[in-house]
Protein backbone atom coordinates (compact mmCIF):
# COMPACT_ATOMS: atom_id res chain seq x y z
CA UNK A 1 0.00 0.00 0.00
CA UNK A 2 1.36 3.36 -1.00
CA UNK A 3 1.75 5.69 1.91
CA UNK A 4 0.94 9.24 0.92
CA UNK A 5 2.40 11.80 3.29
CA UNK A 6 -0.04 14.65 3.62
CA UNK A 7 0.10 17.19 6.42
CA UNK A 8 -2.78 15.39 8.10
CA UNK A 9 -1.01 12.02 8.16
CA UNK A 10 2.17 13.71 9.32
CA UNK A 11 0.29 15.20 12.22
CA UNK A 12 -1.02 11.80 13.20
CA UNK A 13 2.49 10.40 13.00
CA UNK A 14 3.54 12.56 15.95
CA UNK A 15 2.16 10.90 19.06
CA UNK A 16 0.20 13.17 21.37
CA UNK A 17 1.41 13.73 24.90
CA UNK A 18 -0.17 11.69 27.66
CA UNK A 19 0.03 11.41 31.44
CA UNK A 20 2.79 8.77 31.25
CA UNK A 21 5.02 11.10 29.25
CA UNK A 22 4.19 14.02 31.54
CA UNK A 23 5.24 11.98 34.58
CA UNK A 24 8.59 11.29 32.87
CA UNK A 25 8.92 15.00 32.09
CA UNK A 26 8.14 15.83 35.71
CA UNK A 27 11.19 13.88 36.82
CA UNK A 28 13.29 16.55 35.12
CA UNK A 29 11.87 19.19 37.48
CA UNK A 30 13.27 18.77 41.00
CA UNK A 31 11.03 21.38 42.61
CA UNK A 32 7.88 19.54 41.58
CA UNK A 33 8.75 16.50 43.69
CA UNK A 34 8.10 18.19 47.00
CA UNK A 35 5.19 18.07 49.41
CA UNK A 36 3.35 21.21 50.52
CA UNK A 37 1.18 21.18 53.64
CA UNK A 38 1.55 17.41 53.74
CA UNK A 39 0.30 16.98 50.18
CA UNK A 40 2.05 16.34 46.88
CA UNK A 41 2.62 19.76 45.28
CA UNK A 42 0.29 20.45 42.36
CA UNK A 43 1.81 23.43 40.60
CA UNK A 44 -0.76 25.31 38.55
CA UNK A 45 0.83 28.75 38.51
CA UNK A 46 3.06 28.54 35.46
CA UNK A 47 1.30 31.53 33.93
CA UNK A 48 3.05 33.57 36.63
CA UNK A 49 6.35 31.73 36.54
CA UNK A 50 7.35 28.29 35.36
CA UNK A 51 9.67 25.72 36.95
CA UNK A 52 13.14 24.79 35.70
CA UNK A 53 14.23 21.41 34.37
CA UNK A 54 17.64 20.06 35.41
CA UNK A 55 19.08 20.78 31.95
CA UNK A 56 18.40 24.50 32.46
CA UNK A 57 19.74 24.58 36.01
CA UNK A 58 22.83 22.67 34.87
CA UNK A 59 23.39 24.96 31.87
CA UNK A 60 23.59 27.96 34.17
CA UNK A 61 25.78 26.10 36.66
CA UNK A 62 28.10 24.85 33.92
CA UNK A 63 28.54 28.39 32.63
CA UNK A 64 29.67 29.59 36.04
CA UNK A 65 31.85 26.55 36.65
CA UNK A 66 33.59 26.56 33.29
CA UNK A 67 33.12 29.69 31.19
CA UNK A 68 32.27 32.73 33.25
CA UNK A 69 33.65 35.94 31.74
CA UNK A 70 32.36 39.22 30.33
CA UNK A 71 31.32 38.91 26.70
CA UNK A 72 32.41 40.97 23.69
CA UNK A 73 35.60 42.21 25.34
CA UNK A 74 38.87 40.71 26.46
CA UNK A 75 41.02 38.45 24.35
CA UNK A 76 41.43 35.67 26.84
CA UNK A 77 40.18 32.13 26.55
CA UNK A 78 37.25 32.41 28.93
CA UNK A 79 36.04 35.65 27.34
CA UNK A 80 36.02 33.99 23.94
CA UNK A 81 34.18 30.92 25.23
CA UNK A 82 31.63 33.02 27.10
CA UNK A 83 30.98 35.14 24.02
CA UNK A 84 30.53 32.02 21.91
CA UNK A 85 27.94 30.38 24.15
CA UNK A 86 26.18 33.73 24.65
CA UNK A 87 25.84 34.33 20.93
CA UNK A 88 24.98 30.67 20.27
CA UNK A 89 22.16 31.14 22.76
CA UNK A 90 20.94 34.13 20.76
CA UNK A 91 20.84 32.01 17.61
CA UNK A 92 18.91 29.30 19.47
CA UNK A 93 16.28 31.84 20.56
CA UNK A 94 16.15 33.37 17.07
CA UNK A 95 15.47 29.90 15.64
CA UNK A 96 12.94 29.26 18.38
CA UNK A 97 10.72 32.11 17.14
CA UNK A 98 11.63 32.12 13.46
CA UNK A 99 13.63 35.36 13.69
CA UNK A 100 17.03 36.33 12.37
CA UNK A 101 19.99 36.46 14.69
CA UNK A 102 20.42 40.27 14.64
CA UNK A 103 16.71 40.77 15.32
CA UNK A 104 16.89 38.95 18.63
CA UNK A 105 17.67 41.29 21.53
CA UNK A 106 18.20 40.19 25.13
CA UNK A 107 16.16 41.96 27.76
CA UNK A 108 15.52 41.30 31.46
CA UNK A 109 11.96 40.26 30.72
CA UNK A 110 8.97 41.17 28.57
CA UNK A 111 8.24 44.23 30.72
CA UNK A 112 11.66 45.63 29.94
CA UNK A 113 11.19 44.77 26.26
CA UNK A 114 7.96 46.75 26.10
CA UNK A 115 9.49 49.67 27.97
CA UNK A 116 12.44 49.52 25.59
CA UNK A 117 10.13 49.92 22.58
CA UNK A 118 8.11 52.73 24.17
CA UNK A 119 11.18 54.66 25.33
CA UNK A 120 12.97 54.16 22.00
CA UNK A 121 9.87 55.64 20.31
CA UNK A 122 9.99 58.54 22.79
CA UNK A 123 13.63 59.04 21.89
CA UNK A 124 12.75 58.94 18.19
CA UNK A 125 10.31 61.78 18.93
CA UNK A 126 12.98 63.79 20.74
CA UNK A 127 15.63 63.10 18.11
CA UNK A 128 13.28 64.17 15.32
CA UNK A 129 12.44 67.40 17.11
CA UNK A 130 16.14 68.21 17.29
CA UNK A 131 16.86 67.23 13.71
CA UNK A 132 18.85 64.15 14.66
CA UNK A 133 18.46 61.01 12.56
CA UNK A 134 17.09 60.45 9.08
CA UNK A 135 13.65 60.54 7.44
CA UNK A 136 12.92 56.96 8.51
CA UNK A 137 13.48 57.89 12.13
CA UNK A 138 11.13 60.87 11.79
CA UNK A 139 8.40 58.48 10.65
CA UNK A 140 8.66 56.73 14.03
CA UNK A 141 8.11 59.92 16.03
CA UNK A 142 4.89 60.03 18.08
CA UNK A 143 3.09 63.28 18.81
CA UNK A 144 -0.19 65.03 19.62
CA UNK A 145 -2.99 63.78 17.38
CA UNK A 146 -1.37 60.37 17.01
CA UNK A 147 -2.91 57.24 18.45
CA UNK A 148 -1.59 54.30 20.38
CA UNK A 149 -3.99 51.37 20.35
CA UNK A 150 -4.06 48.52 22.87
CA UNK A 151 -6.81 46.14 23.98
CA UNK A 152 -8.96 45.80 27.09
CA UNK A 153 -7.34 42.47 27.92
CA UNK A 154 -3.75 43.65 28.29
CA UNK A 155 -1.42 42.81 31.14
CA UNK A 156 -0.18 45.98 32.86
CA UNK A 157 3.21 45.38 31.21
CA UNK A 158 1.64 45.95 27.79
CA UNK A 159 -0.49 48.81 28.99
CA UNK A 160 1.35 51.19 31.32
CA UNK A 161 4.38 51.71 29.01
CA UNK A 162 1.86 52.86 26.37
CA UNK A 163 -0.04 55.08 28.82
CA UNK A 164 3.25 56.72 29.67
CA UNK A 165 4.31 57.03 26.03
CA UNK A 166 0.99 58.75 25.33
CA UNK A 167 1.60 61.05 28.30
CA UNK A 168 5.13 61.92 27.17
CA UNK A 169 4.20 62.56 23.56
CA UNK A 170 0.66 63.92 23.75
CA UNK A 171 -0.70 60.97 21.76
CA UNK A 172 -4.08 59.41 22.57
CA UNK A 173 -4.41 55.89 23.98
CA UNK A 174 -7.34 53.89 22.66
CA UNK A 175 -8.68 50.46 23.54
CA UNK A 176 -10.01 47.65 21.38
CA UNK A 177 -12.89 46.30 23.49
CA UNK A 178 -13.67 42.67 24.23
CA UNK A 179 -17.03 40.97 24.01
CA UNK A 180 -18.51 39.12 26.97
CA UNK A 181 -16.97 35.84 25.81
CA UNK A 182 -13.52 37.40 26.00
CA UNK A 183 -12.85 37.88 22.28
CA UNK A 184 -11.58 41.11 20.76
CA UNK A 185 -14.14 43.15 18.85
CA UNK A 186 -12.34 43.24 15.50
CA UNK A 187 -15.18 45.27 13.98
CA UNK A 188 -14.52 48.01 16.53
CA UNK A 189 -10.77 47.65 16.03
CA UNK A 190 -11.26 48.38 12.34
CA UNK A 191 -13.10 51.57 13.26
CA UNK A 192 -10.52 52.70 15.80
CA UNK A 193 -7.40 52.19 13.72
CA UNK A 194 -6.57 55.05 11.39
CA UNK A 195 -3.66 56.61 9.61
CA UNK A 196 -2.89 58.39 12.90
CA UNK A 197 -2.30 55.08 14.68
CA UNK A 198 1.41 54.80 15.36
CA UNK A 199 1.39 51.70 17.53
CA UNK A 200 -0.92 48.71 17.80
CA UNK A 201 0.06 46.59 20.82
CA UNK A 202 -1.79 43.46 21.91
CA UNK A 203 -1.28 40.15 23.60
CA UNK A 204 -1.04 36.91 21.64
CA UNK A 205 -2.80 34.95 24.38
CA UNK A 206 -4.57 36.48 27.37
CA UNK A 207 -3.06 35.66 30.78
CA UNK A 208 -6.54 35.94 32.31
CA UNK A 209 -9.08 34.91 29.69
CA UNK A 210 -6.99 32.26 27.96
CA UNK A 211 -8.14 33.64 24.61
CA UNK A 212 -5.77 33.26 21.66
CA UNK A 213 -6.07 36.46 19.64
CA UNK A 214 -6.29 36.45 15.82
CA UNK A 215 -2.81 37.89 15.26
CA UNK A 216 -2.92 37.89 11.47
CA UNK A 217 -6.22 39.75 11.31
CA UNK A 218 -4.91 42.35 13.75
CA UNK A 219 -1.64 42.66 11.85
CA UNK A 220 -3.63 43.27 8.66
CA UNK A 221 -5.52 46.09 10.41
CA UNK A 222 -2.25 47.50 11.71
CA UNK A 223 -0.62 47.34 8.28
CA UNK A 224 -3.56 49.12 6.68
CA UNK A 225 -3.17 51.93 9.23
CA UNK A 226 0.60 52.02 8.86
CA UNK A 227 1.08 51.29 12.57
CA UNK A 228 3.91 49.45 14.28
CA UNK A 229 2.54 46.13 15.51
CA UNK A 230 3.78 44.95 18.91
CA UNK A 231 2.99 41.43 20.12
CA UNK A 232 3.10 40.42 23.78
CA UNK A 233 4.07 36.77 23.42
CA UNK A 234 4.48 36.02 27.16
CA UNK A 235 1.68 33.45 27.21
CA UNK A 236 2.32 32.09 23.73
CA UNK A 237 6.07 31.68 23.19
CA UNK A 238 6.34 29.19 26.09
CA UNK A 239 3.28 27.20 25.04
CA UNK A 240 2.82 27.05 21.27
CA UNK A 241 4.91 27.23 18.10
CA UNK A 242 5.67 30.91 17.45
CA UNK A 243 6.84 32.20 14.09
CA UNK A 244 7.26 35.96 14.17
CA UNK A 245 8.01 36.17 10.45
CA UNK A 246 4.90 34.24 9.56
CA UNK A 247 2.82 36.44 11.85
CA UNK A 248 4.57 39.49 10.36
CA UNK A 249 4.58 41.50 13.59
CA UNK A 250 7.10 44.33 13.94
CA UNK A 251 7.98 43.52 17.52
CA UNK A 252 7.43 40.59 19.86
CA UNK A 253 8.45 40.20 23.50
CA UNK A 254 8.49 37.35 25.99
CA UNK A 255 10.06 36.39 29.33
CA UNK A 256 12.36 33.46 29.98
CA UNK A 257 10.99 32.65 33.41
CA UNK A 258 7.62 31.73 31.96
CA UNK A 259 9.29 29.16 29.65
CA UNK A 260 11.38 27.02 31.99
CA UNK A 261 14.29 29.47 32.24
CA UNK A 262 15.54 31.56 35.16
CA UNK A 263 14.28 35.04 35.99
CA UNK A 264 16.13 38.06 34.65
CA UNK A 265 16.20 37.14 30.98
CA UNK A 266 13.80 37.80 28.14
CA UNK A 267 13.74 38.42 24.42
CA UNK A 268 12.72 41.32 22.25
CA UNK A 269 12.23 40.57 18.58
CA UNK A 270 12.14 43.49 16.18
CA UNK A 271 12.34 43.76 12.43
CA UNK A 272 15.91 44.56 11.50
CA UNK A 273 15.30 47.84 9.67
CA UNK A 274 13.16 49.21 12.49
CA UNK A 275 15.63 48.20 15.19
CA UNK A 276 18.51 49.78 13.31
CA UNK A 277 16.52 53.00 12.83
CA UNK A 278 15.28 53.35 16.40
CA UNK A 279 17.39 55.32 18.87
CA UNK A 280 18.61 53.25 21.80
CA UNK A 281 16.80 53.08 25.14
CA UNK A 282 19.62 52.35 27.61
CA UNK A 283 23.03 53.74 26.71
CA UNK A 284 26.52 52.92 27.93
CA UNK A 285 29.19 50.35 27.29
CA UNK A 286 29.12 47.67 24.57
CA UNK A 287 26.55 49.36 22.32
CA UNK A 288 28.66 52.08 20.67
CA UNK A 289 30.99 52.50 17.71
CA UNK A 290 32.68 55.84 18.40
CA UNK A 291 32.45 57.95 21.52
CA UNK A 292 33.77 61.50 21.78
CA UNK A 293 33.49 64.01 24.59
CA UNK A 294 30.36 65.38 22.90
CA UNK A 295 28.42 62.41 21.59
CA UNK A 296 28.30 58.78 20.57
CA UNK A 297 27.48 56.70 17.53
CA UNK A 298 25.65 53.45 18.09
CA UNK A 299 26.03 49.89 16.87
CA UNK A 300 23.20 48.24 14.91
CA UNK A 301 20.90 45.74 16.63
CA UNK A 302 21.16 43.62 18.66
CA UNK A 303 24.07 45.36 20.46
CA UNK A 304 22.36 48.73 19.98
CA UNK A 305 19.91 47.72 22.71
CA UNK A 306 22.27 45.81 24.98
CA UNK A 307 24.10 48.40 27.06
CA UNK A 308 26.29 47.17 29.88
CA UNK A 309 27.39 43.68 30.82
CA UNK A 310 24.64 41.32 29.82
CA UNK A 311 22.71 38.54 31.53
CA UNK A 312 25.03 35.88 30.17
CA UNK A 313 24.32 32.81 32.28
CA UNK A 314 20.60 33.49 32.06
CA UNK A 315 20.78 33.70 28.26
CA UNK A 316 22.62 30.38 28.16
CA UNK A 317 19.99 28.87 30.47
CA UNK A 318 17.18 30.28 28.33
CA UNK A 319 18.68 28.58 25.29
CA UNK A 320 18.69 25.29 27.23
CA UNK A 321 15.01 25.90 28.04
CA UNK A 322 14.18 26.59 24.39
CA UNK A 323 15.94 23.37 23.44
CA UNK A 324 13.96 21.44 26.04
CA UNK A 325 10.70 22.76 24.59
CA UNK A 326 11.78 22.18 21.00
CA UNK A 327 12.78 18.60 21.77
CA UNK A 328 9.43 17.94 23.43
CA UNK A 329 7.68 19.61 20.50
CA UNK A 330 5.74 22.82 21.01
CA UNK A 331 2.86 21.68 18.83
CA UNK A 332 2.48 18.67 21.14
CA UNK A 333 2.81 20.86 24.24
CA UNK A 334 0.18 23.21 22.85
CA UNK A 335 -2.29 20.40 22.19
CA UNK A 336 -1.72 18.84 25.61
CA UNK A 337 -2.20 22.12 27.42
CA UNK A 338 -5.29 22.94 25.37
CA UNK A 339 -6.69 19.60 26.57
CA UNK A 340 -5.87 20.51 30.19
CA UNK A 341 -7.45 23.94 29.70
CA UNK A 342 -10.64 22.36 28.38
CA UNK A 343 -10.70 19.92 31.29
CA UNK A 344 -10.38 22.83 33.74
CA UNK A 345 -13.17 24.85 32.16
CA UNK A 346 -15.55 21.93 31.75
CA UNK A 347 -14.94 20.93 35.37
CA UNK A 348 -15.31 24.45 36.71
CA UNK A 349 -18.47 25.14 34.74
CA UNK A 350 -20.02 22.04 36.25
CA UNK A 351 -19.60 23.43 39.79
CA UNK A 352 -22.27 25.68 41.33
CA UNK A 353 -21.36 29.32 41.97
CA UNK A 354 -18.32 29.37 39.69
CA UNK A 355 -17.94 31.88 36.88
CA UNK A 356 -15.15 31.13 34.41
CA UNK A 357 -13.74 34.13 32.57
CA UNK A 358 -13.18 34.01 28.84
CA UNK A 359 -14.17 31.37 26.29
CA UNK A 360 -16.69 28.72 27.35
CA UNK A 361 -15.89 25.00 27.36
CA UNK A 362 -15.37 23.73 23.84
CA UNK A 363 -14.07 27.10 22.62
CA UNK A 364 -10.37 27.52 21.93
CA UNK A 365 -8.24 28.57 24.90
CA UNK A 366 -4.73 28.01 26.20
CA UNK A 367 -4.10 25.84 29.26
CA UNK A 368 -5.33 28.22 31.90
CA UNK A 369 -8.58 29.27 33.50
CA UNK A 370 -9.36 32.25 35.72
CA UNK A 371 -12.59 32.14 37.68
CA UNK A 372 -14.69 33.79 40.35
CA UNK A 373 -16.21 31.84 43.22
CA UNK A 374 -19.44 33.48 44.24
CA UNK A 375 -19.29 34.63 47.86
CA UNK A 376 -15.62 33.73 48.39
CA UNK A 377 -12.76 36.13 47.77
CA UNK A 378 -9.95 34.89 45.53
CA UNK A 379 -7.41 35.15 48.35
CA UNK A 380 -9.47 32.78 50.44
CA UNK A 381 -9.84 30.40 47.47
CA UNK A 382 -6.07 30.43 46.97
CA UNK A 383 -5.43 29.82 50.67
CA UNK A 384 -7.83 26.90 50.69
CA UNK A 385 -6.19 25.36 47.61
CA UNK A 386 -2.73 25.88 49.12
CA UNK A 387 -3.80 23.86 52.15
CA UNK A 388 -4.36 21.01 49.67
CA UNK A 389 -0.90 21.53 48.15
CA UNK A 390 -2.31 23.24 45.07
CA UNK A 391 -0.53 26.39 43.87
CA UNK A 392 -2.62 28.91 41.93
CA UNK A 393 -2.51 32.64 41.36
CA UNK A 394 -4.98 34.99 43.03
CA UNK A 395 -5.64 38.69 42.49
CA UNK A 396 -6.04 40.78 39.36
CA UNK A 397 -3.19 39.04 37.52
CA UNK A 398 -1.76 42.45 36.57
CA UNK A 399 -4.88 43.18 34.54
CA UNK A 400 -6.95 45.61 36.62
CA UNK A 401 -8.73 47.29 33.69
CA UNK A 402 -9.82 43.89 32.38
CA UNK A 403 -11.15 42.85 35.79
CA UNK A 404 -13.00 46.14 36.12
CA UNK A 405 -14.47 45.58 32.66
CA UNK A 406 -15.71 42.18 33.87
CA UNK A 407 -17.07 43.66 37.11
CA UNK A 408 -14.55 41.91 39.36
CA UNK A 409 -11.58 42.96 41.48
CA UNK A 410 -9.85 39.64 41.97
CA UNK A 411 -10.06 36.14 40.58
CA UNK A 412 -8.32 32.80 40.98
CA UNK A 413 -6.28 31.43 38.09
CA UNK A 414 -4.98 27.95 37.44
CA UNK A 415 -2.41 27.72 34.66
CA UNK A 416 -0.86 24.51 33.38
CA UNK A 417 2.36 23.62 31.62
CA UNK A 418 3.90 20.59 30.01
CA UNK A 419 4.62 19.06 33.44
CA UNK A 420 0.95 18.94 34.51
CA UNK A 421 -1.18 15.81 34.27
CA UNK A 422 -4.93 15.46 33.99
CA UNK A 423 -4.71 14.20 37.59
CA UNK A 424 -3.37 17.63 38.59
CA UNK A 425 -6.40 19.25 37.00
CA UNK A 426 -8.73 16.77 38.71
CA UNK A 427 -7.12 17.41 42.11
CA UNK A 428 -7.59 21.12 41.51
CA UNK A 429 -11.24 20.70 40.51
CA UNK A 430 -11.89 18.45 43.49
CA UNK A 431 -10.44 21.11 45.81
CA UNK A 432 -12.39 23.96 44.19
CA UNK A 433 -15.56 21.92 44.71
CA UNK A 434 -14.98 22.16 48.48
CA UNK A 435 -14.34 25.90 48.68
CA UNK A 436 -17.84 27.26 49.08
CA UNK A 437 -18.87 24.80 51.77
CA UNK A 438 -15.68 25.51 53.74
CA UNK A 439 -16.45 29.22 53.71
CA UNK A 440 -20.12 28.52 54.54
CA UNK A 441 -21.48 29.98 51.32
Amino acid at each position, binding site marked *: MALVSTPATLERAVPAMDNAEVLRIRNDFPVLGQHVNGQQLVYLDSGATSQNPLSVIEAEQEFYEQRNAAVHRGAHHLAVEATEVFEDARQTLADFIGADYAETVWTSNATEGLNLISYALSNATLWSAQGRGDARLRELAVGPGDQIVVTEMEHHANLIPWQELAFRTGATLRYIPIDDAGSLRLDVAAEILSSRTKVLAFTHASNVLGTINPVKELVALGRKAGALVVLDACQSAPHLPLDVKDLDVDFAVFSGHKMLAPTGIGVLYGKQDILDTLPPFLTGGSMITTVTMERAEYLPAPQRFEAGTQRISQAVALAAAANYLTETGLDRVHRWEAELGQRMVAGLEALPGIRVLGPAAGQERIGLAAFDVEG*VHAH*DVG*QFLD*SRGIAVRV*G*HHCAQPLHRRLGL*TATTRASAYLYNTTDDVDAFLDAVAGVRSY*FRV
Partner: protein
Amino acid sequence: MSLDQLYQQIILDHSKARHGSGLAGTEAPLGASTGQSHQLNPVCGDEVTVRVAVEDGKVAQISWDGAGCSISMASASVLSELAEGLSVAELHGIIDSFREVLRSRGKVHADPEILGDAAAFEGVARYAARVKCAMISWVAAEDAVNQAAA
Protein backbone atom coordinates in the same frame (compact mmCIF):
# COMPACT_ATOMS: atom_id res chain seq x y z
CA MET B 1 -0.59 24.60 60.81
CA SER B 2 -4.05 23.70 59.68
CA LEU B 3 -6.35 25.91 57.68
CA ASP B 4 -8.85 25.94 60.54
CA GLN B 5 -6.33 27.72 62.78
CA LEU B 6 -6.21 30.51 60.22
CA TYR B 7 -9.92 30.61 59.50
CA GLN B 8 -11.24 30.39 63.05
CA GLN B 9 -14.98 30.28 63.54
CA ILE B 10 -15.02 33.87 64.86
CA ILE B 11 -13.37 35.04 61.63
CA LEU B 12 -15.76 33.15 59.36
CA ASP B 13 -18.73 34.47 61.37
CA HIS B 14 -17.56 38.08 61.27
CA SER B 15 -16.78 37.87 57.56
CA LYS B 16 -20.46 37.10 56.99
CA ALA B 17 -22.17 39.26 59.62
CA ARG B 18 -20.16 42.42 59.35
CA HIS B 19 -20.39 44.66 62.38
CA GLY B 20 -20.25 48.39 61.69
CA SER B 21 -20.32 47.90 57.95
CA GLY B 22 -21.81 50.72 55.86
CA LEU B 23 -20.74 54.34 55.85
CA ALA B 24 -23.87 55.69 54.26
CA GLY B 25 -26.36 57.26 56.63
CA THR B 26 -24.04 57.38 59.61
CA GLU B 27 -24.34 60.87 61.02
CA ALA B 28 -21.58 61.75 63.44
CA PRO B 29 -22.88 62.83 66.88
CA LEU B 30 -23.24 66.58 67.23
CA GLY B 31 -20.03 68.13 68.48
CA ALA B 32 -17.84 65.14 67.60
CA SER B 33 -14.84 65.53 65.33
CA THR B 34 -14.46 62.96 62.59
CA GLY B 35 -11.70 61.41 60.57
CA GLN B 36 -11.85 59.11 57.59
CA SER B 37 -9.20 56.96 55.95
CA HIS B 38 -9.20 54.84 52.81
CA GLN B 39 -6.64 52.05 52.53
CA LEU B 40 -5.94 49.86 49.52
CA ASN B 41 -3.94 46.68 49.19
CA PRO B 42 -2.70 46.83 45.59
CA VAL B 43 -1.74 43.16 45.62
CA CYS B 44 -5.30 41.86 45.82
CA GLY B 45 -7.43 44.98 45.38
CA ASP B 46 -8.83 44.81 48.91
CA GLU B 47 -9.99 48.19 50.09
CA VAL B 48 -11.41 49.56 53.28
CA THR B 49 -12.63 53.01 54.30
CA VAL B 50 -12.98 53.63 58.04
CA ARG B 51 -14.71 56.64 59.58
CA VAL B 52 -14.24 57.50 63.24
CA ALA B 53 -16.03 60.14 65.31
CA VAL B 54 -14.30 61.26 68.51
CA GLU B 55 -16.10 63.05 71.31
CA ASP B 56 -14.64 63.92 74.72
CA GLY B 57 -11.55 61.85 73.95
CA LYS B 58 -13.61 58.74 73.24
CA VAL B 59 -14.54 56.85 70.06
CA ALA B 60 -18.18 57.87 69.81
CA GLN B 61 -18.78 56.08 66.54
CA ILE B 62 -16.90 53.91 64.07
CA SER B 63 -18.15 52.68 60.72
CA TRP B 64 -16.55 51.23 57.64
CA ASP B 65 -17.06 50.10 54.09
CA GLY B 66 -14.96 47.79 52.07
CA ALA B 67 -14.49 44.87 49.76
CA GLY B 68 -12.02 42.09 50.23
CA CYS B 69 -11.23 38.64 51.53
CA SER B 70 -12.76 37.05 54.61
CA ILE B 71 -9.75 37.97 56.75
CA SER B 72 -9.89 41.67 55.86
CA MET B 73 -13.67 41.91 56.21
CA ALA B 74 -13.78 40.00 59.50
CA SER B 75 -10.92 42.07 60.85
CA ALA B 76 -12.78 45.32 60.11
CA SER B 77 -15.92 43.92 61.70
CA VAL B 78 -14.13 42.85 64.89
CA LEU B 79 -12.32 46.16 65.09
CA SER B 80 -15.48 48.22 64.87
CA GLU B 81 -17.09 46.09 67.57
CA LEU B 82 -14.09 46.55 69.86
CA ALA B 83 -13.40 50.21 69.21
CA GLU B 84 -16.69 51.85 70.03
CA GLY B 85 -16.60 53.52 73.44
CA LEU B 86 -12.83 53.19 73.90
CA SER B 87 -10.76 56.24 74.67
CA VAL B 88 -8.45 57.35 71.87
CA ALA B 89 -5.49 56.17 73.96
CA GLU B 90 -7.10 52.76 74.50
CA LEU B 91 -7.78 52.39 70.80
CA HIS B 92 -4.14 53.17 70.01
CA GLY B 93 -3.19 50.60 72.63
CA ILE B 94 -5.16 47.75 71.04
CA ILE B 95 -4.02 48.74 67.55
CA ASP B 96 -0.40 48.57 68.71
CA SER B 97 -0.99 45.25 70.40
CA PHE B 98 -2.71 43.81 67.32
CA ARG B 99 0.09 45.01 65.08
CA GLU B 100 2.73 43.49 67.34
CA VAL B 101 1.03 40.09 67.25
CA LEU B 102 0.46 40.16 63.49
CA ARG B 103 4.00 41.19 62.65
CA SER B 104 5.59 38.65 64.97
CA ARG B 105 5.41 35.70 62.55
CA GLY B 106 3.68 33.75 65.30
CA LYS B 107 6.19 34.52 68.06
CA VAL B 108 3.95 36.87 70.07
CA HIS B 109 0.69 35.42 71.33
CA ALA B 110 -2.49 37.45 71.39
CA ASP B 111 -3.87 38.36 74.79
CA PRO B 112 -7.65 37.92 74.70
CA GLU B 113 -7.91 40.22 77.73
CA ILE B 114 -6.63 43.07 75.56
CA LEU B 115 -7.73 42.06 72.08
CA GLY B 116 -11.01 40.26 72.72
CA ASP B 117 -12.29 38.62 69.52
CA ALA B 118 -9.34 40.09 67.63
CA ALA B 119 -7.16 37.49 69.34
CA ALA B 120 -8.62 35.04 66.81
CA PHE B 121 -6.40 36.62 64.17
CA GLU B 122 -3.29 35.31 65.90
CA GLY B 123 -3.03 32.52 63.30
CA VAL B 124 -2.81 35.05 60.47
CA ALA B 125 0.65 36.03 61.71
CA ARG B 126 1.94 32.71 60.41
CA TYR B 127 0.82 33.55 56.87
CA ALA B 128 3.03 36.44 55.79
CA ALA B 129 0.96 37.05 52.65
CA ARG B 130 -2.19 37.57 54.71
CA VAL B 131 -0.92 39.92 57.43
CA LYS B 132 -1.86 42.96 55.35
CA CYS B 133 -5.39 41.60 54.95
CA ALA B 134 -5.85 41.58 58.72
CA MET B 135 -4.11 44.93 59.24
CA ILE B 136 -5.76 47.03 56.53
CA SER B 137 -8.78 48.26 58.53
CA TRP B 138 -6.68 48.78 61.66
CA VAL B 139 -4.27 50.99 59.71
CA ALA B 140 -7.26 52.91 58.36
CA ALA B 141 -8.73 53.30 61.87
CA GLU B 142 -5.41 54.53 63.23
CA ASP B 143 -5.21 57.15 60.49
CA ALA B 144 -8.86 58.16 60.90
CA VAL B 145 -8.67 58.54 64.68
CA ASN B 146 -5.48 60.58 64.37
CA GLN B 147 -7.31 62.93 62.04
CA ALA B 148 -10.31 63.14 64.34
CA ALA B 149 -8.20 63.74 67.44
CA ALA B 150 -5.96 66.29 65.75
